[in-house]
Structures are given as C-alpha cells and as structure tokens.
C-alpha cells in the first residue's frame, strides 16, 4: 500500500469528491500502483493477472452500495493502459464512481488510458460517475483516452455522468453500448476545453431489444484555440427509442465539429437527434449585467450553469 501525498489527495478530491476513505468498496491507484483497496460482502475486487487492471464483481441483489475506483498520476512521463471490468449481477442498485486526475509538472507526457467494461445483469440499476481532471504547469502533456463499453441485459438501467472540465490536453473518448429488451441508458456528458486542447468524444449506442431506450446528451464549451469533435450515434435495431443531443458553446477561437447521427434498422425504431453550436447570447450577458455582474462574471455564471 502506498500513502497518498498532498497532490494525490487533491487530485482524488477533484475526481471522486472524496475527502475521506469512502464507505463501501474501493480501489485507489496512484502512479501505476495499488494505493488502497477494500471489498464488502457483496462487492469483490480482484487484480487482473494478464493485464493491468481489476475485475469488480457485484453479487446479485446488491442494493444501495457503492464502488469508488479513482486513479491519480502525479509523476511526469507515466504512460499506462488499465482494463477494469465491472460484472454487475441481477437486481442490483449500485453507484460506481471512477475518475482520473493527472498532475504533470514535468516535461514528459503523462497518459492514462482506462478501458472500462460494464456487464449489467437483468433488472439492475447502475449510476456511473466519471470525472477527469488535469493540473500542473509542466510542458508535458496530460493525456486521457477513456474507452467505455456497456453491455446491458433485459430491463437494466444505467445513468452515466461523464465530466471533463479542466486541464486535460488531449482526450479521445470512446463509449459503446449494447442494450437488450427494456434496457435504458441515460448519458450526460460535460466537456470543457481551453488553450490548445483537443478533445474527441464518440458514442456508439445500439438499441437491440424491443422497448430499449437511450438518451445521450452532451454539453460542451470550447474556449481559446481548443478543438472538439462530438460524434454521437444511435442505432435502432428494434422497437426502441433513442435521442442524442449535442449542445455547445463556442468562445474565442474555439472550434467544434458536432456529428450526431442515427441509424434505423427497424421500422419501429423512433430516433431523434439535435445539435446546436453557438456563442453566449448577448442578451444573456446583458441580463446578468443588469443584475450587477461584470461581463466576465456573467460569462462564468452562464458557463458554470451550462456545464452543471
């Protein structure tokens, strides 16, 4: 076990809202090493033997329990790929909090590529929260390329909150999901890029069973000279309903490419997509200024609200 230093503790707070050791199961990873682990009667965590990563096994009927698996990188020059598999049994109701914080004060790039796979059993409910955060003023880049795969059995429900607000230089996010009958997926993505950052986020959601549904909503802000590509695709292969929405604010010299797409392979599929990109509306700024905020304060309030 490794003791966390102050930087690592700060990163932990940013990505997992953890001030203390959480109740329930957890697995802390710091600079590619195990820094702490706890299991419960219903949730087991095992290290993988072939590759770096863990298996999280949640027993049938586990309710009101949580798993935290934060990762922090505070040394410059680390490059790692980690495979975490979540096996959620049937009839569960659990909260899973993951996240990665990178502090890079050095000159070498630091990169964490997390591959998360979720196998969610029948009638189970999962809330998944993932936060990414970067800090440090070194020349080395902070790179995060998360891959998330979700396989949902009949009537499973998953709500995903994916947040990347600060400090990550380059990111390629890939999220795939396959839903069986009656399964329901709700995704809220919040993305902000600044400086010269580049971010790509690709969603590929297949609605394979009757009565399955997906609602994928991405809100993003591109500031300075940053670039974002948002590619949200839903495939309707049964009597299902799907909705994707990319809603973006563009500022300074930021650039955004939004590519929401739909593919219907069943006449019973009901699919909708929406996309909007625009600068902050002038009358929004004016309204907040008539309430006493400066233009800059008004801008901050609007963005904070938008990304909340």
């Amino acid at each position, binding site marked *: 076990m490794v003791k966390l230093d102050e930087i690592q503790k700060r990163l932990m707070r940013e990505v997992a809202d953890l001030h203390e050791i959480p109740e329930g199961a957890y697995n802390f990873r710091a600079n590619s090493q195990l820094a702490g682990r706890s299991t419960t009667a219903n949730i087991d965590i095992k290290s993988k033997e072939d590759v770096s990563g863990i298996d999280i096994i949640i027993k049938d009927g586990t309710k009101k329990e949580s798993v935290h698996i934060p990762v922090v990188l505070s040394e410059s020059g680390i490059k790692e790929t980690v495979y975490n598999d979540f096996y959620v049994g049937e009839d569960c109701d659990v909260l899973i909090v993951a996240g990665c914080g990178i502090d890079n004060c050095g000159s070498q790039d630091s990169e964490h590529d997390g591959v998360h796979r979720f196998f969610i059993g029948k009638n189970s409910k999962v809330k998944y929260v993932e936060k990414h955060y970067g800090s440090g003023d070194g020349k080395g880049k902070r790179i995060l390329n998360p891959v998330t795969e979700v396989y949902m059995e009949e009537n499973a429900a998953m709500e995903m909150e994916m947040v990347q607000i600060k400090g990550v230089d380059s990111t390629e996010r890939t999220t795939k999901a396959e839903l069986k009958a009656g399964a329901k997926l709700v995704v809220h993505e919040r993305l902000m890029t600044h400086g010269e950052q580049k971010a790509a986020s690709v969603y590929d959601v297949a609605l394979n069973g009757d009565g399955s549904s997906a609602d994928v909503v991405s809100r993003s802000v591109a500031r300075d000279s940053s670039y974002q590509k948002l590619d949200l695709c839903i495939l309707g292969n049964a009597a299902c309903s799907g909705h994707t929405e990319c809603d973006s604010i563009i500022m300074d010299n930021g650039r955004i490419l939004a590519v929401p797409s739909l593919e219907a392979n069943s006449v019973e599929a009901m699919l909708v997509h929406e996309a909007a990109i625009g600068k902050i509306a002038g009358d929004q700024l004016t309204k907040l200024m*008539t309430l006493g905020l*400066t233009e800059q304060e008004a801008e901050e309030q609007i963005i904070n609200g938008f990304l909340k």
Partner: protein
Amino acid sequence: MLELINITFNADNDGQEKEIIKDISLKVEDDRFTVITGPNGGGKSTLAKIIAGIEKPQSGRILLDGRDITGLSITDRAKAGIGFAFQQPVRFKGLTVLDLLKIASGKPIKISEACSYLSEVGLCAKDYINREINASLSGGELKRIEIATILAKDPRLAVFDEPEAGIDLWSFQNLIKIFENMQKSVSGRSIMVISHQERILSIADEIVVLANGQISAQGSREEILPTIMGTDSAVGSCGMLEKEAKSNG
C-alpha cells in the same frame, strides 16, 4: 429621484440615421409608480434601455439621486440601484430559478427568501425553485420569474419594459395583481413601467405619454388618463376574452 436631461438617441436605420428620442427631459420622483405610455414606435423601450445603460444616448445626462450616471456601464448602474426587467426575458440553459435569484440579490440567500419572491409573483416556489430557465417555461412563467429577479434585487428604481407583452390573458390578470401590490409598497423606491395597457395605467401615480420620441403629456393619472382613453396610448384588453378568463380563472 431619476432625472433625464436633454436625452437624444439616434439609431441607424438602413444607413439612414433616425431620431428615436428627441431631446427628452424627465423627472421620475421617488415613492411613485410611473407609467410611460404612447403609441408603438414612440421610443418607450429605447428610453427604458437608456436608463439601464443598455443603449447609450448621443447626448444628454442621466442623474440618479443627483449623481451623474451617464457614463456608467450596465453593471455599475445596476450596482447604483437601477433594476431592469426585460420585455422578452432571457432563457439560460442550466441556470436554475434559484441561481438567478441568488445572482439578483447579490448575496447568498436562503431558500426560504427565494421562495418568498416566487410566491409574490404567484408561482408555487417548490415547483419552480430548481427549474432550469429554459424553453420548458412558458412566456407567462418567464415573465413572473423576471419580475421575481427584480424583487430579489430590490433596486432604488425598477424599470419594467412592457411586462404584459407576450403573455396570455390569464397570466395578464395575475400580473396586474403583482403590480397593484408593488404600487402599494412603492415607498422608499420608485417604479417605472413601460406599458400602454389601460389596466396598468389605471394604477399609475404618474403618467408620461411618449410619441414620436417626445413627451406629449405628463401628469397625474387623474389628469392624463381621461385624455388618452381609447387611443393607442391606453389599450384595453378584449372585453369578451377578459370575461372568459375571469370565469375560468
């Protein structure tokens, strides 16, 4: 007291300069509910925006309690005590009603305080406090929230730009009640409403008629209202519809 001295405002109209406000001088006294009326295109909303600092006049001076605020920005005028309710309230994705009320009051406020502002404008606080100010709100709801932000800000001078515009008749009835309450408790502040609705004019202490960018009449309600009844400056809502709204409401 707000004082406008020789205010002139020209707008660019397809390359041609058009005089919208022509050398207006006006005093808005304290403890008064003043209604600015007049035909459409007469310059009423422009005048309201000039007071809030959203439009800059080409010439003239604006004094608030004797202090020259002509050069102040929108933000500084808000800080100096001017509140402005938009004719078309703005929507904000993500910001909640509570967020906006907090910003308006300029200090951390308790939920119970925020709720009291909403109750005053006839909204059930628990249904609205955490609602986003987005497209899911109707025009009438937005108008009331807009007014609630002014209550939360509690300015020395509150300017309402056509509060009745864009709302249905049922909401209009309730809006009148809100303004009646404001008129009763105006003491220590002043309220200025841009409107040509007869129902709002009938609760005014003071009426100013603005036509073609100039003040054509100014005085107490008793003095002015009879002279403008039935004109563009005092429009009644449709009697039939109003009756229907009353029986339904």
